[in-house]
């Protein structure tokens, strides 16, 4: 398999002009690219151009100067923190779980875990909020069980409807997301690698230090960044759980576009959206570099 990947590169260098060959190869990809262009990139371009207009439809940077000030800057700070914390607390258990499944699980179990993670990664909104309120709310089942065991979380100041609470709830879709994204990287550290290392006399510890961690670190970081972006952009769950007590960018956009009190500030909403895209894009740049390196490594 590894060889076969390498060979296509060799062939393309040999045969004809490189560009023309690439064009022919790209041809069957055109439907997908065209589809993305129309249904995804075009709408996003519209958002970007609208964000560059003021309320009188003239070109202006006014919206972007607005969003660098309070309260919008606070919202960006909170959202970035939420994305980072939820990514941190999801990526570690998610990676460990994915590793154990990859190494010990049967093919069937792996397939099942991927699909199940797919379902869970897509839970959100009112149903997810309710699941956690019913379990970890003041009267929730888990809280009651813990109380019976003598542990009173709420007396320790815990509440689900706080920043910490939201981070906690996000783990329900972030951990499965980590499993989906990180599992493929683990293919590169399959049993064979370990066996090879063992045959060469490496202890498990040495194996991890010299092979395992360096090999997985790029993929782990890449997955982390992706989780960051996902937590940063999530909307419906936070909306169902807060009354403006946590300023988050997606919620602020929602309020600007769909709020009751303030009047027409939709363009500020659009520039906030563009601001989000920029933050996500900044997170994606290291992701790209790392992915590229990782691919070279794996080959």
């Amino acid at each position, binding site marked *: 398999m590894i060889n076969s990947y390498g060979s296509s590169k060799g062939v393309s260098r040999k045969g004809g002009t490189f560009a023309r060959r690439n064009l022919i190869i790209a041809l069957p990809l055109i439907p997908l690219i065209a589809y993305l262009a129309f249904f995804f990139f075009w709408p996003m371009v519209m958002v970007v151009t609208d964000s560059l207009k003021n309320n009188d439809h003239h070109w202006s940077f006014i919206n972007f100067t607005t969003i660098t000030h309070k*309260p919008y800057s*606070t919202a960006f700070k909170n959202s970035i923190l939420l994305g980072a914390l939820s990514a941190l607390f999801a990526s570690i258990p998610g990676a460990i779980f994915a590793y154990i499944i990859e190494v010990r699980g049967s093919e069937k179990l792996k397939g099942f875990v991927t699909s199940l993670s797919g379902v869970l990664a897509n839970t959100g909104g*009112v149903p997810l*909020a*309710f699941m956690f*309120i*019913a379990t970890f*709310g*003041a*009267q*929730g089942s888990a809280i009651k069980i813990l109380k019976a065991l003598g542990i009173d979380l709420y007396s320790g100041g815990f*509440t689900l*409807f*706080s920043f910490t609470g939201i981070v906690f709830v996000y783990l329900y879709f972030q951990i499965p997301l980590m499993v989906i994204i990180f599992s493929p990287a683990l293919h590169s550290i399959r049993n064979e690698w370990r066996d090879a290392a063992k045959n060469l006399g490496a202890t498990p510890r040495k194996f991890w230090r010299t092979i395992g961690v360096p090999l997985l670190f790029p993929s782990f970081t890449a997955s982390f960044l992706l989780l960051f972006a996902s937590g940063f952009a999530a909307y419906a769950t936070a909306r*169902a*759980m*807060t*009354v*403006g*007590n*946590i*300023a988050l960018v997606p919620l602020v956009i929602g*309020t600007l*576009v*769909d*709020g*009751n*009190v*303030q*009047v*027409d500030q*939709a363009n500020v909403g659009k520039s906030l959206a563009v601001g989000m895209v920029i933050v996500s894009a900044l997170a994606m740049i290291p992701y790209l570099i790392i992915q590229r390196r990782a691919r070279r490594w794996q080959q």
Partner: protein
Amino acid sequence: MRGKRLVVAATVAALFTTGLVVATAPAQAAGKINYCTAQNLTEAGGMDALVTAAKKEGTLNVITLASGWANYDEAIALFKKAFGIKIVNDNPDGSSAYELQTIKTAPDAKQPDVVDIGATHLGAESSDTLGRSLFTPYKVATWNDITPTWKDTNGLWYGDYQGTINIAYDSSVTPAPTKISDLSNPAYKGMVALGGDPSAATESFMSVFAASIAKGGSVDDIKPGIEFFRSMKQSGNFVTVPATGANLATGAFKIALSWSFNGPGFIQAAKGIGKDLKYVTPKDVVLKGSPYIQAINAKAPHCAAARLWEEFLYSENKGKFSKDLTPADIKQSGSKVFALIMGGQNIFNSGAAHPITEAAMIKKGTLIAPPAGFEIPAGVKVYSPTLDQQIPQQAVVKTMWPSVIQ
């Protein structure tokens, strides 16, 4: 294409108004009436013609009419049953801004026929040019009964009902709260909630306003209300959960400030989760909000149905609710069915809202009794901040609220 149709229609309408057809029976003219420009019932050819035309259109697009809100459920059910017109309700939980956004951005088929928006939005949207581009004028038959301050003289928009801020509480709470200023009672630790974010939702904004007046503020000063919630946050009384049914079910809150017209629906919903919810008009301050505003969308896809809906909502009839309507009733002519059913103003009233024609209806004796427990006690001063008073206070909430709850 739409523009072309309007030009033709306008020409036809112009012919009518020159007096050519005035003498002929309205029913015969029904086929030729342009309902998209009719500005009152006469221009719409009378009730029979309007009902026939609306039935022919077959559908009415409404928007953000939440279940349990001001008894709109009954209004929708009754209208559907009486006239056999399908009602499409876009995003029932959406906000006023969503309604305006939809008019501005949605394609023709998704345009609402009628809107029900918070009055604060009028500040920007009713300024003449904008209002005209969004709404089309229509004056209902009961136009003169609508409070003059709450209608556009040209008929672009008109208030429909108002609510008061009430205290909603789980009856297991002791002592039962009767005043807003009571809510800081240590017995209510971890119980008090708001419906949403006061800097985004009108109901919560008005709740903070009511608290302010109760704590020494005024219709020009919302700060004492914000400080009241700050102290309740610090004492642990105020919990930052949205006061929804699901959160009531899990015990996340037990007391909330809420529009009176959310009461009957919420009480009913709470029964389903084994909670005995009660609404009480606060003894220390009664705050009546600005009315919600009705208007017909200038781009309404169902012009006749939109006008029939407005006539229905402003009807002061004392008639039958949907459950009492028999098949024989519906077989009658449009105007007879209309005269038979409960008018929209009374439906609002049965949902603990104050209909805009309340004063006129009391005079005529057509107002039905509001649900028990929602009457405003006699002799109590009712506060109603005007739009000019609300707008600066909104800015105050917007800057101060984040520091309260973080």
